[in-house]
């Protein structure tokens, strides 16, 4: 009987170790110079920077800012709306995973930006609530802008979206990694994305 129990115990451990996803551990992306697929070419002048879009946005703290103020550190950007129940939560989780998978030293050197499709409902108050619910720390900016500004930004990021008759939005779920100057260096699928690639890109930017 004893041996049986021992055997059973061993087998259970083995099974568990097969199924469990690795706990958030630091990816060794910064130790080696890994090749990154799909990295956009960088013109020296940075003239593809999306910070060239003028226009004033309001963040979740009620502060008015232009996109230019995001300059200086890499950003993880996506467009969402807070009333979204299906895809947006997953996109936000994916963005958090990208940040959390970075080495601790780099985590606070990268910002997160969520731009809302829905200026009517996503007021600063609403966005503050959303940030709290999703546990988004001070490194995150949640932006509200006019409908025209939102359309213009979606054009610069190549995001497709449509306002539906119920007030919700149908949109694509891509995540964008911007370099310090605001150029898009990596596009990640918000649902099936390759977190490793995004992290490698960020590491390269921060080294």
């Amino acid at each position, binding site marked *: 009987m004893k*041996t*049986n129990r021992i*055997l*059973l115990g061993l*087998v259970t451990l*083995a*099974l568990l*170790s*097969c*199924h469990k996803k690795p706990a958030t551990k630091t990816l060794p992306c910064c130790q080696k110079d890994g090749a990154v697929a799909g990295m956009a070419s960088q013109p020296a002048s940075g003239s593809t920077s999306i910070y060239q879009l003028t226009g004033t946005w309001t963040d979740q703290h009620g502060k008015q800012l232009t996109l230019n103020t995001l300059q200086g550190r890499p950003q993880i950007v996506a467009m969402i709306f807070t009333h979204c129940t299906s895809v947006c939560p997953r996109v936000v989780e994916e963005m958090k995973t990208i940040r959390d998978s970075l080495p601790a030293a780099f985590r606070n050197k990268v910002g997160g930006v969520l731009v809302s499709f829905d200026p009517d409902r996503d007021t600063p108050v609403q966005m503050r609530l959303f940030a709290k619910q999703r546990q988004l720390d001070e490194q995150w900016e949640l932006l509200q802008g006019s409908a025209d500004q939102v359309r213009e930004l979606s054009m610069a990021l190549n995001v497709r979206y449509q306002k539906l008759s119920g007030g919700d939005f149908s949109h694509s779920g891509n995540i964008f990694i911007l370099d310090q100057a605001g150029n898009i260096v990596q596009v990640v699928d918000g649902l099936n994305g390759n977190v490793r690639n995004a992290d490698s890109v960020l590491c390269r930017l921060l080294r």
Partner: protein
Amino acid sequence: MVLQGFFAAGSFLIIEFFNGIKTLKYDQDHFFVCRASTKRIGHRPTFDLITKNQKAVKTTYLNRCLPQIIFSRRILRLFVCACIWLTACNQHAKNNTGADDTTAVTGEYNPVLTFAPNVPEARDNAAPKKVMVEIEVVEKVMKLADGVDYTFWTFGGKVPGPFIRVQEGDEVELRLDNNANNKMPHNIDLHAVNGPGGGADATMTVPGHSSVFRFRALNPGLFVYHCATAPVGMHIANGMYGLILVTPKEGLPNVDKEFYLMQGEFYTKGKNGEPGLQPFDMDKAVKEQPEYVVFNGSAGSTTGANALQAKVGDRVRIYVGNAGPNLTSSFHVIGQIFDKVYLEGGSQINRNVGTTLIPAGGATIVEFTCKEPGTFNIVDHSIFRAFNQGALAQLVVTGPADKNIYSGKLADEFYFPPIPDQAGKKDKPVIEASSPEPSFADRFKDGHALFESNCSSCHQSTGLGLPGSFPPLAKSDFLMNRQDMGIGVLLHGINNEPITVNGKHFQGVMPQLSLTDDQIASILTYVRNSWGNKSPAVKASEVKKIRNQ
């Protein structure tokens, strides 16, 4: 993890098995019932072997109790646990390693792309490589048929587009360029691609831009590619199609000549042959009523001076695509038999086929050996398409003829119409002679009718005959000067005896016709009173008299 589990479970069983291996001995006194004994001998478990006479014998000979060992509870548990462990680990492993058949590719390769009817040569090295293909879409006006122009949308500037030849297992990187002067958006769907749209959604490109995507050529075969931008039918109907060959790992057998043909329909506003720049007609396309069905983008593209060329003895392989957009092709080479057909361009082979079907959006590969010289028409055997709408190409084979295989025409002879069978009537008594003689007019009329049906094929309705062959009756001295008025000739015919008619010499056969006295009389009345001839009517009784002589 996987290996560890496997070996752990497996080695246990193996060790136990070999532990007690001995030559099996059975005798009639023993039959075996094994049960695990509570006793142990040394460290090895023992089993009770119950003999026939109910005596229990302790044995450590495990081989005799092997079945019981295997199904003993402990080992069974272990085995089941090992299986679960293995499958669980296996699933996990599978999610990470991806598909099995994507072995690494080494080396880049820029294949030569050729336009119809030429096919690029097979690559020497069959190992999978990264293959770079670039195709530019061009919208241009070209000839559809003599005097007829059409605005084609093309891959590479020609219809059909270039022939892409890759190897099974290759990783193909395809760049699609849309010329800045084009008006329409385009993309590409290759039937060799495993993936959504066959590449179409990855390659939607507006003019002045390029798209790139990669795919693995996993399946060997001959496949169509075409533009798949809505409305798809219109893009195909305007000429956006071509073939991609994924050569199997083991390669294709060597042949002497390879050709590329692609059938497609064109739907024009004007009828077939109407000159000028013809616009596309969507109505006709929906109704599947083309004006042109052609090979390689235009009527006459592969005929006459542009025909395919081969020599006697050549083994020929033709890669044939059918772009549609609507019709299925019944592909046939007149005068050849396909020794080998790769059905629908796949891996199944059919042999000795005359006509093979090619589905719309499909392809086929045919092989045959040229045994005879000549011009061989290549057609879609829905035959009005071939001869009235342009679905005709040609293969010209030169070289020595072999009369044993095909003799050509052996004889060319005259053919007499068959004589109606009057054998029965000859024996019957001729009753007509006793009936009253009809009037001249009646005789003449009957004689005319009889002449037309029996005599005019040779002597002509004009009575002029055929110089050198059939003597004239018009103003014929031979006829008019005869004592018997010509009755003898009609009764007995002429059998190669030389005669002179109006100074001309004739020697031939006039068949002996089975005619009644009455009929002969009517005929002679007619001929002796036509075309300038004049004489009294001939009576049936006169005929009878000469017949009975």
